[in-house]
Structure formats: structure tokens, C-alpha cells
């Protein structure tokens, strides 16, 4: 393995560890917004990881997957804000 490839894979491992650590916020909350935010960060982390993999393995098509994630990054957060945000914070309605 050439040195650039090792660097990219090491960084990808590091980002995955970051993602694992961020799971703590999803598990702990305390508010639903905190959990959603952490999940949003995972999306960005996955994009960065995919871009690193694409460069390390020389597979240009992997960037398309990162592009897909980037395009759809907002969907679950939007669904959360519009629909699922529970009344645990208070009883106000979303509409």
C-alpha cells in the first residue's frame, strides 16, 4: 500500500471512530433535537469517509454515492422537524 492510501484509510478509520463516539449523543439526548443533530453529523462524516475511500482506492464512482448522501442529507432532519418532533419539550403543536 502506498503511503497516501494508508493515510486516507487511517483518516477514514478515525472518522468512523468519531461516528461511534457521536452515537453517545443519540443515545443520551436529552432532547430529540440533540439526537437528530448527532444523526445529521453522521451524514457529513459518511460523506467525508466516502470521499476518502474514493481517492484511496481510485474508484471515481464512489464520489457519486457521496453526492447522493449530500443531496439527501436534509431529508430525515426535515421529516423530523416537520412531523416527528415530539411534545417532550412542551405541548405546542408543530403546525
Amino acid at each position, binding site marked *: 500500500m502506498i503511503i497516501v492510501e494508508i493515510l486516507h484509510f487511517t483518516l477514514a478509520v478515525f472518522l468512523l471512530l468519531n461516528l461511534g463516539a*457521536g452515537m453517545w449523543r443519540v443515545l443520551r439526548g436529552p432532547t430529540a433535537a440533540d439526537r*437528530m443533530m448527532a444523526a445529521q453529523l453522521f451524514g457529513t462524516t459518511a*460523506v467525508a469517509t466516502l*470521499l476518502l475511500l474514493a481517492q484511496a482506492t481510485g474508484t471515481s464512482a464512489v464520489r457519486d454515492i457521496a453526492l447522493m448522501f449530500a443531496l439527501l442529507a436534509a431529508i430525515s432532519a426535515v421529516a423530523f422537524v416537520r412531523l416527528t418532533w415530539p411534545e417532550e*419539550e*412542551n405541548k*405546542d403543536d408543530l403546525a
Partner: protein
Amino acid sequence: MTLLDYLAATLLLAGAVFFLAGTLGLLRFPDVYTRLHALTKADNVGLGLTVAGLAVQAESWQVVGKLVLIWMLVLLAGASVAHLIARGALHKGIRPWTP
């Protein structure tokens, strides 16, 4: 390694540091709003530096264009989501942290 490789490696490492900072902020900051602040740093700067580092090594301008497009889409999503969550949180009566 050439000078460009060193530059790329530096940018990538700096990007990773911002991802770490984002995660640490997410874990350590006291309330929704400050955590949101930490999160957007990872989104904007962390991914930005990663993209910059990869763009230096990119084999063609098309690849650079795609990288920048991906970054800008993530920026757009991140900014909109941060806004929606912050406004929703205020609306729902989650009070900002005061030291």
C-alpha cells in the same frame, strides 16, 4: 512524496481535527444551541478542509468540480437543518444555556 502531497495531507489532517472538534463539542457542550454550533463546524470546515485536501490530489478538474458540488450541497443542507432545529427549539421553549 511531493510538496503537493504534503499540502494535501496537512489539509486532510486539519479536516479530521475539525471533525473531532465537532464530535467533542457535540458531546461536551451544554445545550442544543451550542451543540448546533459545534456540529456546523464539522459540516462546514471539517468537510471543507477534507474536500480541499482531496482536490489538491484530484486527477482532473471534473473531480474537483464534483467535490466542490458535494461540499456546497452539504453546506446547504447543514445550514437549513441548523436553522430549522434552532428555530424549532426556541419555538418549543428550550431555553438557551446561560453560564
